[in-house]
């Protein structure tokens, strides 16, 4: 798992909200409901996101109790994405359009014809495409309430927040930040918001 890697990059959250009474069983049920589902070859869905056990990206169907490590919830988010390069899509569309022009002996195709060709090409290519998989771990210290997600891009974190909050319903993620850390240590929002940036610049003057 990511934490055992030589170097790790994380974004931190504070988990907020009422944890369910029967915590372990409830959490397991919710994880299982939002477990990862493979994109079937005939499926045109481009992206699939869900939970898998850490160290076992293909174990979504039998998520056991290994996610609960005595005070820590440890799990991975798997994202599968079917991706077709736009140049490939364009090339196939041109080829199909030429076929249609020759067959119909027309000089040009209508907007609707071009649209349906494009859709047919996308269906064909998506059915043939193999998804690209990626797995991102998190661990949640249920005693401190801090959760560490092993990914730092905004886009990835937004996907993680969405899946987490969809899975755990009444539990929310509060992004840690300078404000978040101060707020979690009982510094009031009012006093933090009263601060204005200081200038350390010698040239910009001495406004402080």
């Amino acid at each position, binding site marked *: 798992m990511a*934490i055992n890697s030589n*170097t790790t990059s*994380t974004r931190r959250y504070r988990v907020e909200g009422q944890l369910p009474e029967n915590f372990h069983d409830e959490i397991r049920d919710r994880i299982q409901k939002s477990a990862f589902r493979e994109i079937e070859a005939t499926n045109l869905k481009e992206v699939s996101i869900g939970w898998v056990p850490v160290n076992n990206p293909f174990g979504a169907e039998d998520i056991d109790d290994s996610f609960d490590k005595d005070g820590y919830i440890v799990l991975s988010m798997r994202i599968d994405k079917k991706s077709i390069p736009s140049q490939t899509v364009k090339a196939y569309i041109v080829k199909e359009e030429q076929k249609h022009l020759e067959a119909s002996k027309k000089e040009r195709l209508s907007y609707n014809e071009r649209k349906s060709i494009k859709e047919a090409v996308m269906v064909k290519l998506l059915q043939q495409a193999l998804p690209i998989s990626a797995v991102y771990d998190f661990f949640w210290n249920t005693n401190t309430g801090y959760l560490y997600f092993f990914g730092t891009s905004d886009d990835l974190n937004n996907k993680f927040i969405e899946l987490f909050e969809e899975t755990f319903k009444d539990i929310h993620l509060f992004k840690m930040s300078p404000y978040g*850390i101060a707020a979690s240590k009982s510094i009031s*929002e009012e006093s933090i918001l009263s601060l204005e940036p200081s200038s350390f610049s010698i040239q910009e003057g001495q406004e402080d």
Partner: protein
Amino acid sequence: MGLLETIEKTEFLGSEFLTWLWYMSEKHTGMFEIQDIGSVEVWFYDNVKLEKGKDGGNRESIICKGATSDLKEARLGLRTGKRLKEARLKIIIDDDEWFLTIDSGFLDFRQLKTPKIDKSDFAGDDKDADAAFYEKVYLFERAVNVIDNLFMAFIQERLSNGWHQTAVPAIRQWIQEGI
């Protein structure tokens, strides 16, 4: 004010924290006293990134590399109004060393390297795998604890009258002296 707006409005505290930390590290030859941990060394190590401007505008950024005392270009950047965006730190507690890059935005930890654990101690069954996990998590959270404590020391000073009267002039002087 919404949460996102509050986070954005206070984002500057991340880069001010890094500037303060760099100054404090040099002033106290890296030594800090941290509650529940004791003596901790924190050094700016190897590289820093500075920025000026915002998303969508004319953003300038520079990356400065070198030993602590050689980061003159970075200090020149601070002097001309650039702000610290990222800093590579080295934390030492007893014989253990951590390396990490802190991003000023969300104070994300990047490329965190914890002290080495002896993998041969944890090479057996699942129980050993769990023990290795707990050991790594302990080391990881120790670094978080250090940074949180330092950040709170900064916030306490930042909210005090001493910030404008003493800290800001002292940091400006330190920037000036280092060029």
